[in-house]
């Protein structure tokens, strides 16, 4: 694989811009990242292969690993992809893209699992592209797992694009697991046409500093768009969920629903921008960000933003940041559940609300398991 020159000085001044004001990645500019392809042993890959019945696509440092993958028709791998004319090229992102393989998905029988690993003995930077293209009336379900292995402080910059044509239905789950020393700057670009439905979940369970960008273009009438997110972070972890939804046509519904629990010195940033174009009447857009803070030093910033050029729209936003609900805790305790267990149960309930509606059982089980491992007192829930 030929490597692109990677000019990481682009990170130096990002935090001086409005879009990055709460997320400082300037330290990345001083790191000499490797851009190598490394072999990952089979057993590591196996631990992330959670549903052997499904298609399984493995990219290691952005390079397709044929031996570990199970590919069916409707899935294509392209070594060289051209972003010209792609959905991503419609907007502008400050996140650079490295040369990588591209997975194109045009059909799915069940859920397709994609595992993207970043690995290396020294700090390694990689991208990886997934393009989900659902033609008229097609239904596609994809679950991605992003894992940086080891504690070298890798940088992963994945790019996922969804094209949902008229009446198509796309479900995408992206789970970020693995090392807590890694940086992840990810992009998701979505284009939807008339009467299509897109549902995405972005689940952040690991990483040192993460930014999950979502940019959606609703280019037809009667579109349903759901962008959900969940995170559970502690210590000095940082997540920045940065969304922009463009309502370009009338009668579309969009929802941003992000929730998380923060412990230690962890920090979350939520920016949800709704843009309603002139003429996009009867737009219904909701932005919600809910946080539970477990420590005095944890920090949640919510920035709901509305940019509306039309009357006759319903745009709502709500943000809550607080502690565990005392009323609910008393209710559980009045049923004999001890204080610590009641708190655990309520934390689990809070986050589980965004896992519950994942259609893929194997993926849901794995994420629930991962969540419980990371949660104080999670073992108690597991015994139930």
């Amino acid at each position, binding site marked *: 694989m030929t490597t692109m020159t990677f000019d990481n000085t682009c990170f130096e001044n990002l935090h001086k811009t409005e879009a990055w004001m709460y997320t400082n990645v300037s330290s990345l500019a001083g790191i000499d990242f490797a851009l190598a392809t490394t072999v990952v042993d089979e057993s590591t890959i196996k631990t992330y292969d959670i549903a052997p019945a499904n298609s399984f696509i493995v990219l290691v440092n952005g390079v397709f690993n044929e031996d570990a993958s199970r590919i069916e028709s409707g899935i294509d791998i392209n070594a060289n992809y051209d972003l010209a004319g792609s959905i991503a090229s419609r907007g502008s992102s400050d996140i650079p893209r490295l040369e990588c393989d591209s997975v194109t998905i045009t059909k799915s029988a069940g859920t397709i699992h994609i595992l993207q690993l970043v690995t290396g003995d020294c700090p390694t930077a990689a991208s990886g592209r997934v393009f989900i293209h659902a033609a008229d009336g097609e239904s596609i379900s994809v679950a991605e797992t992003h894992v940086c292995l080891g504690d070298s402080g890798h940088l992963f910059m994945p790019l996922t694009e969804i094209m949902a044509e008229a009446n198509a239905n796309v479900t995408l789950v992206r789970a970020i697991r693995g090392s807590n020393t890694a940086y992840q700057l990810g992009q998701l670009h979505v284009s939807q046409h008339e009467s299509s439905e897109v549902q995405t979940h972005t689940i952040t369970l690991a990483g040192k500093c993460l930014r999950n960008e979502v940019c959606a273009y609703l280019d037809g009438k009667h579109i349903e768009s759901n962008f959900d997110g969940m995170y559970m972070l502690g210590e000095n972890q940082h997540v920045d969920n940065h969304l922009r939804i463009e309502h370009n046509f009338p009668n579309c519904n969009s929802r941003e629903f992000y929730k998380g629990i923060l412990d230690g010195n962890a920090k979350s940033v939520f920016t949800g921008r709704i843009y309603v174009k002139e003429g996009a009447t009867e737009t219904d857009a909701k932005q919600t960000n809910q946080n539970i803070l477990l420590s005095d030093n944890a920090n949640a910033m919510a920035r709901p933003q509305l940019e509306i050029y039309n009357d006759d729209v319903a745009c709502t936003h709500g943000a809550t940041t607080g502690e565990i*609900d*005392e*009323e*609910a805790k*008393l*209710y*559980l*305790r*009045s*049923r*004999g*559940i*001890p*204080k610590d*267990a*009641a708190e655990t*149960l*309520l934390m*689990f*309930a*809070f*986050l*589980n*609300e965004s896992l*519950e509606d994942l259609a893929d059982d194997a993926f849901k089980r794995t994420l629930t398991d991962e969540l419980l491992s990371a949660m104080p007192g999670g073992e*108690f829930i597991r*015994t*139930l």
Partner: protein
Amino acid sequence: MTTPLLEIKNLHANVEGNDILKGVNLTVNLGEVHSIMGPNGSGKSTLASVLAGHDAYEVTEGEIYFMGQDLLELDADQRACAGIFLAFQYPVEIPGVSTKFFLKAAVNAMRKYRGEEELDAMDFLDLVEEKAASVKLNTDLLDRGVNEGFSGGEKKRAEIFQMAMLNPKLCVLDETDSGLDIDALRIVADGVNNLRNPERGFVVITHYQRLLDHIVPDFVHVLIDGQIAKSGGKELAIELEEKGYAAFENCSTGCCCG
């Protein structure tokens, strides 16, 4: 003389610095159903919350004994494990965990407290089916988040269902009739009546006499301004219905009414 199930002596309690209970005395024996009636603000729900161990209420004076044990020394969860159940006036909604899941945690926490073995999944589900049927509760509801999206009637039936599941010694019902239509009221009352037995006592808090047509109490107490102004048999509820609470409002000093 046998130890009373519940013995409240000169109980004073306040919330956020406001004195609500001003010397309540009440004794409940096993097998008895006591009803506490009173106007809004008289302290009925406070009494229920204090019994359940709600942190927001501070007991400033008096004693509560539950089966001879000093109740005020126990935390809310320990009280539940010891055998006190409060059916909430406004049950909390908890999306994200199903009622089944939550109840399994509750049942097993109590069994652990009592040094009993945990219930296995099959036995637990059998128990759920049986008890849900007793209050005509659709078990599909139990796979939803706790009380999530339940109607008023469903919430109250779910409380009685939980009560049946947890098999308490003392059941405290806090205005369980509020917000119920006649049919729902009857189902809830039937559920409660099924649980009446010589090994259990009830404190039924209500604003209206109509609940007591269905759950016929052994004793009725009128709570006025934080004190029990009058106690009597079930006929007292009917007298209250006719005369209203105003007739009892000067009783707390010890005068005689009726």
